[in-house]
């Protein structure tokens, strides 16, 4: 891989003393079982797969692999819970269980943050300050909705759908579990959830939390496995709804699988977000926002601002500041509190990212990478930026899901609106300008479900999230996150 490096000479001024989070109090089990009907059960398949720490490739534990009979058990227990106790429970009592889960997550937040970082490779600062607090907040927020649903849908009596199958990705493991489970429970459904193969552990700790909260057996079932387990959930005849977060490709195949059924769906899929800097933007804040937009969580973010559009008149300035800022990013041990960029989640994902970086060079774009030492062992990718990118390049069109930014320029507002919208995706977009009327104009013209104006990658349980076009359908979070789990007729 070729790389042109023009580094600022910081002369070691940016080196921090290591500040490693202790893992002494963390004890992982030797193997993790399936959580079905309130109990941890060995898989009927008797199969297990390893869970790896992506920062050093060491095996952390073994995870049960659910096959057809295990999925049947999980769905049946969810159905029985729905038809039984849970379905008859007054909404205000339902709420109390969900509040309990929120509180126990807060109590266990340190443990959860460390395990999230060990298992997924994301910086501890991020698991500690973003993933885990947001997961707790999500349960707390939706708990309060349980007994207030009739106020959300004027002139309708909302009813739960039944058993919902939920399949989540590896980029925000516990947070995604919370985004899925909290609204499903608040609306009175029961759940079969499958975490991603590479990041199952925090979901299984969540299962322990659910047990501790004394949630009735079968209301939430958490089963682990790979894509084949997910497929079994999707195709199970007794599942009423599929909520999926993941790639657009898998999302489309799920939609095909359920196209002749009455199953409902929520799809939160890929993105290729435009982040737009106008000449009147506050440049330092904008650069900070661009860095956060693409390098946050190693770029493993469906709403990552992976296409940067800079107005020509400030291009040189923005690019210089961007490269300077990149030089100060700390790549390395995810458990170090100084780390900005952790490990890439898996070997497969690293090879996908590298494939795109090679493609970027091959198709004629200019590469700039952070000049830094990468740890030995584990999966790493330095923050990468491409200039001289055209609309037709693969790196400007396809979702990479890594720390790779494609920079393009524009002259007029209309031009950048056209370029930004010229994509099959429509999850999010960013706009940087000090002019309020321009920010609102862009916010209304950009075809995306979330618009960050003078900010980026912000999340909150009260704020609906979800895409236009091939970025999926349905919303998660806020008032708008309720109806995907309800029947209003």
């Amino acid at each position, binding site marked *: 891989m070729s790389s042109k490096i023009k580094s600022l000479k910081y002369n070691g001024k940016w080196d921090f003393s290591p500040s490693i989070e202790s893992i002494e109090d963390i004890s992982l089990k030797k193997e993790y079982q399936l959580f079905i009907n309130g109990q941890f059960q060995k898989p009927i398949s008797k199969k297990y797969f390893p869970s790896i720490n992506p920062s050093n490739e060491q095996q952390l534990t073994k995870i049960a692999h659910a096959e057809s009979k295990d999925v049947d058990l999980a769905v049946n227990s969810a159905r029985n819970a729905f038809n039984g106790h849970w379905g008859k429970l007054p909404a205000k009592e339902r709420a109390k269980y969900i509040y309990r889960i929120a509180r126990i997550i807060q109590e266990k937040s340190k443990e959860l943050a460390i395990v999230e970082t060990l298992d997924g490779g994301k910086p501890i600062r991020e698991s500690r300050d973003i993933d885990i607090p947001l997961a707790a907040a999500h349960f707390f927020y939706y708990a309060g909705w349980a007994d207030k649903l009739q106020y959300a849908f004027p002139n309708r009596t909302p009813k739960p759908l039944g058993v919902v199958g939920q399949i989540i990705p590896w980029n925000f493991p516990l947070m995604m579990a919370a985004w899925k489970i909290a609204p499903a429970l608040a609306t009175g459904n029961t759940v079969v959830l499958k975490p991603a193969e590479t990041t199952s552990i925090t979901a299984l700790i969540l299962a322990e939390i659910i047990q501790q909260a004394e949630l009735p057996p079968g209301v939430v079932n958490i089963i682990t496995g790979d894509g084949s387990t997910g497929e079994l959930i999707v195709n199970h005849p007794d599942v009423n709804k599929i909520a999926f977060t993941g790639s657009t490709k898998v999302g489309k195949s799920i939609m095909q699988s359920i*196209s002749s059924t009455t199953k409902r769906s929520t799809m939160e899929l890929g993105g290729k977000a435009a982040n737009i800097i106008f000449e009147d933007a506050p440049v330092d804040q904008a650069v900070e926002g661009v860095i956060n937009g693409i390098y946050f969580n190693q770029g493993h973010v469906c709403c990552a601002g992976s296409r940067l559009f800079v107005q020509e008149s400030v291009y040189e300035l923005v690019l210089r500041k961007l490269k300077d800022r990149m030089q100060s990013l700390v790549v390395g041990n995810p458990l170090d509190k100084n780390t900005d960029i952790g490990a890439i989640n898996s070997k497969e994902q690293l090879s996908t990212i590298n494939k795109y970086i090679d493609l970027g060079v091959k198709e004629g774009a200019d590469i700039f990478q952070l000049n830094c030492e990468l740890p030995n062992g584990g999966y790493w990718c330095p923050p990468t930026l491409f200039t001289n990118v055209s609309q037709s390049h693969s790196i400007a069109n396809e979702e990479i899901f890594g720390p790779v930014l494609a920079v393009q320029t524009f002259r007029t507002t209309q031009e950048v609106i056209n370029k930004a919208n010229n994509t099959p995706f429509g999850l999010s977009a960013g706009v940087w300008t000090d002019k309020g009327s321009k920010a609102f104009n862009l916010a209304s013209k950009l075809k995306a479900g979330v618009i960050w104006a003078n*900010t980026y990658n912000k999340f909150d349980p009260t704020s609906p999230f979800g895409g236009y076009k091939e970025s999926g359908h349905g919303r998660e979070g806020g008032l708008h996150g309720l109806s995907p789990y309800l029947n209003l007729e």
Partner: protein
Amino acid sequence: MSKRIKILKTYKIFIDGKFPRTESGRYTQLKKDNIPIANVCLSSKKDIKNAVLFARNAFESWSNKSAYNRSQVLYRIAEMLEGNKNQFLEELILQGVDPKKAILEIDQSIDRIIYFAGWADKINPIFGSVNPVASSHFNFTILEPMGVVAIVAPDDSSLLRLISSIIPVIVSGNTTVSIASEKLPLCAISLAEVISNSDVPNGVVNIVTGEKEELAPHLAQHMDVNALGLNLENKVLKDKMFFEATNNLKRVVDISQYNIQESEFEAPYIVKNFMEAKTTWHPIEKDFTSSNNY
């Protein structure tokens, strides 16, 4: 004096505010009691593509009009329909509807347009939200139209179902391509004439006639259609539409799930089903006296 010869009506399709014949030159003869009553265009894939193109071109301007303006334009359709009742009555009776029921259907259709016209500037106040995020940001969610929506009318209803499918979709700013009832297409074309005489911009409503099984899948496969609104009784065709729609993840709404009668149909949820929620964030400056009270 010889008997006056009646002027017969030529039924054509409606694309971009114009009334062309299908580019394919195909037609079918509609009969009642074995007596020909009209020739109807059998539209082609190319007609569908043209219609989608013009619907797309019309989208930006229609969706950018003020809600107040869209509301008045829809109201105008109702005014025009009210003045053309006789034509629809004749066509409904000609197509075999009992005269009393025909009068009721026309009245219901007019009232339905008025009902949904009023929602244009009320959807967002009811279904939008200002979200109390924990950080120092102003955060709000509004509903926006999706884009081009393809509608398949049912076989058994000539007017009311078609109007009930088109109006809630365009009131929010979407544009449409509709396939008229295959068996009862006359009112659909007359409706197009009413729309053409109202203030609806060209391309917002496009209506083609022809064989549903041939035409509908082209709409489901079209990469520039955002959503489908279906009134389909045929399970095989319905499944095919849902399947084909996955190629660009079109939203699919089964309109036939809604009871056409007033009390059940007249609700904002069908309008909302053809809209997307967009959430916008903006920071609020922080100083030591400020707090996020939004």
